[in-house]
């Protein structure tokens, strides 16, 4: 009975746990609940993935109401993979959260943090599981609102303005998605994704559908922080509490990419999106700009959290570049990078949380001498940085490989060269950190720094270790990405 209801439980459990976390006044109890729920979500995601890999897509009718009139939760190769990513990151971050949150957030607000986290987790899992277009909007707003709360809990007062700016831009983006869904409903009369896809096929000449396409493109691009709609991201990641940054950096843009893939590949179909509408060119141009603008700006940052935030903007550019090719290899590269970037950035932000915990700040000055005083943390940052650069034997290399291969397959020489040049920019900003940590002595009168506690180190190394492991043994990730890409490209009416 439980097994049959897993898709619903995936979302409902974190959702119900959220008010519970609020009622548990003590931060440590809320944390325990959040950790438990994250682990349960992980188990559910894993079993869903197993089920999908063995027996194909799972369709679940919420409340017993049959689709396409009822809300359908549909888990197939793509979202099972994304579900796994979100719940893995959630669990690992929760393992580390106790120490870091206790250090950065006042006692009376800690349970609020975990409440918002659980709501965010529920929202992200809901976006991923659902097969109904409007439901996506609902969960999108749930996760966004809780994200605004998470960001605003940061220590610096700029967290408040960052949350506010994110709120404005995020709401506009979500409302654009709502408009797009509304226009689609107007033309097709259904909100179920697969039903919509079937009904849209003959309607592609309609101006309404094209308008819906445009609104959805802008709305999703804003959510996934595609240049130039990325302005909310640097401030939000920089001023949020370290654990919030870690969780958000590794999940929120990934889920937004998933939403974009759903809308443009499953619902609109690859022919309409890329042959009729110029989505490929637009995404390619913006992605390349994102890669270079993001990396260049990152080089000049003094705050390392902001540096990694701009690096994330560049990495989203890589994902979108893969999408813009609209080929099997291109999509594989994009989906692979979804997973790989989650590992890399999650690990890097967790390591950064350790630095923040031990040194009290995250500017380059805080990094001086860390090579000696926090060797394990720095080693994790170096390895994560090498993965960002794309050194072989790391996950970053695997994504880059497929991306360049996809470009070469299409004959896009300049793009291949630009991708590799972008990696070189990453060398510069990673090496800033390396030099500060290993070549410079700590400032006079600075706080005496000790290595981070195990509760922070272990989760960091789990993610960093994963980013090395999956760079060598790519079977799981590549095969998952391949089936996901095939499912996205070969979409039409699904049985």
């Amino acid at each position, binding site marked *: 009975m439980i097994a049959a209801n897993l898709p619903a439980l995936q979302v409902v459990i974190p959702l119900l746990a959220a008010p519970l976390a609020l009622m548990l006044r003590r931060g440590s109890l809320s944390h325990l609940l959040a950790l438990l729920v994250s682990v349960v979500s992980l188990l559910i995601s894993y079993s869903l993935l197993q089920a999908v890999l063995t027996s194909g897509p799972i369709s679940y009718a919420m409340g017993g109401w049959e689709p396409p009139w009822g809300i359908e939760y549909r888990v197939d190769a793509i979202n099972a993979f994304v579900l796994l990513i979100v719940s893995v990151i959630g669990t690992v971050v929760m393992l580390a959260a106790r120490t870091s949150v206790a250090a950065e957030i006042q006692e009376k607000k800690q349970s609020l943090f975990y409440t918002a986290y659980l709501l965010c987790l529920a929202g992200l899992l809901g976006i991923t599981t659902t097969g109904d277009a409007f439901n996506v909007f609902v969960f999108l707003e749930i996760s966004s609102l809780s994200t605004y709360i998470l960001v605003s809990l940061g220590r610096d007062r*700029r967290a408040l303005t960052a949350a506010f700016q994110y709120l404005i831009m995020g709401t506009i983006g979500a409302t654009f998605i709502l408009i797009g869904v509304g226009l689609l409903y107007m033309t097709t009369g259904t909100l179920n994704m697969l039903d919509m896809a079937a009904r849209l096929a003959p309607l592609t000449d309609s101006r309404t559908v094209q308008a819906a396409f445009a609104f959805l493109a802008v709305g999703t691009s804003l959510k996934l922080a595609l240049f130039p709609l990325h302005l909310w991201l640097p401030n939000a990641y920089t001023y949020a509490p370290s654990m919030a940054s870690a969780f958000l950096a590794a999940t929120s843009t990934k889920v937004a990419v998933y939403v974009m893939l759903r809308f443009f590949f499953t619902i609109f179909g690859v022919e309409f999106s890329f042959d009729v509408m110029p989505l490929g060119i637009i995404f390619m141009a913006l992605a390349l700009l994102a890669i270079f603008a993001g990396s260049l700006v990152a080089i000049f940052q003094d705050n390392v959290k902001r540096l990694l935030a701009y690096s994330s903007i560049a990495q989203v550019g890589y994902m979108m570049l893969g999408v813009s090719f609209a080929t099997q290899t291109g999509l594989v590269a994009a989906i692979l990078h979804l997973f790989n970037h989650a590992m890399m950035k999650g690990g890097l932000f967790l390591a950064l949380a350790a630095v923040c915990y031990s040194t009290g700040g995250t500017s380059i000055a805080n990094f001086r001498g860390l090579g000696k005083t926090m060797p394990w943390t720095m080693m994790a940052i170096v390895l994560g940085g090498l993965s960002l650069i794309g050194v072989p034997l790391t996950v970053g290399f695997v994504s880059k490989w497929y991306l360049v291969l996809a470009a070469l397959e299409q004959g896009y020489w300049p793009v291949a060269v630009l991708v590799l040049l972008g990696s070189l920019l990453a060398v510069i900003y990673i090496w800033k950190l390396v030099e500060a940590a290993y070549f410079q002595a700590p400032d006079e009168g600075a706080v005496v720094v000790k290595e981070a506690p195990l509760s922070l180190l272990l989760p960091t190394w789990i993610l960093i270790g994963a980013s090395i492991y999956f760079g060598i043994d790519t079977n799981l990730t590549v095969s998952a990405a391949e089936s996901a890409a095939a499912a996205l490209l070969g979409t039409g009416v699904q049985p």
Partner: protein
Amino acid sequence: MSTTLGLYNYWIVIFLMMVGLYIVIAHPNLIKKIVGLNIFQTSVFILYISMGKVKGGAAPILDDAVTVYSNPLPHVLILTAIVVGVSTTALALALIVRINEAYGSVEEDEIHDQDAPL
């Protein structure tokens, strides 16, 4: 109904949408931004609701005498969206209260000036 004037509901939607977006972008006062956001969201609500009206349709309450009903689904969707909108507004206003405590102002440029030298 398919004449330009006949599509007056869409014109209203577009007008409200533009007004709302303009206020969000142009006004430095944070509370006014939220008002603008609300107007923007309201335009979308009107879009949905007005598309639900079927020509010659009655209110969607089951009655044997009625043959054509207006579509109740958009209303349901909009109820959800209104709730979302209200939550967003509440959260935004709470943030503004905190911002006012921290900065002593709710004007965007004044806040920006206070942060700039940091």
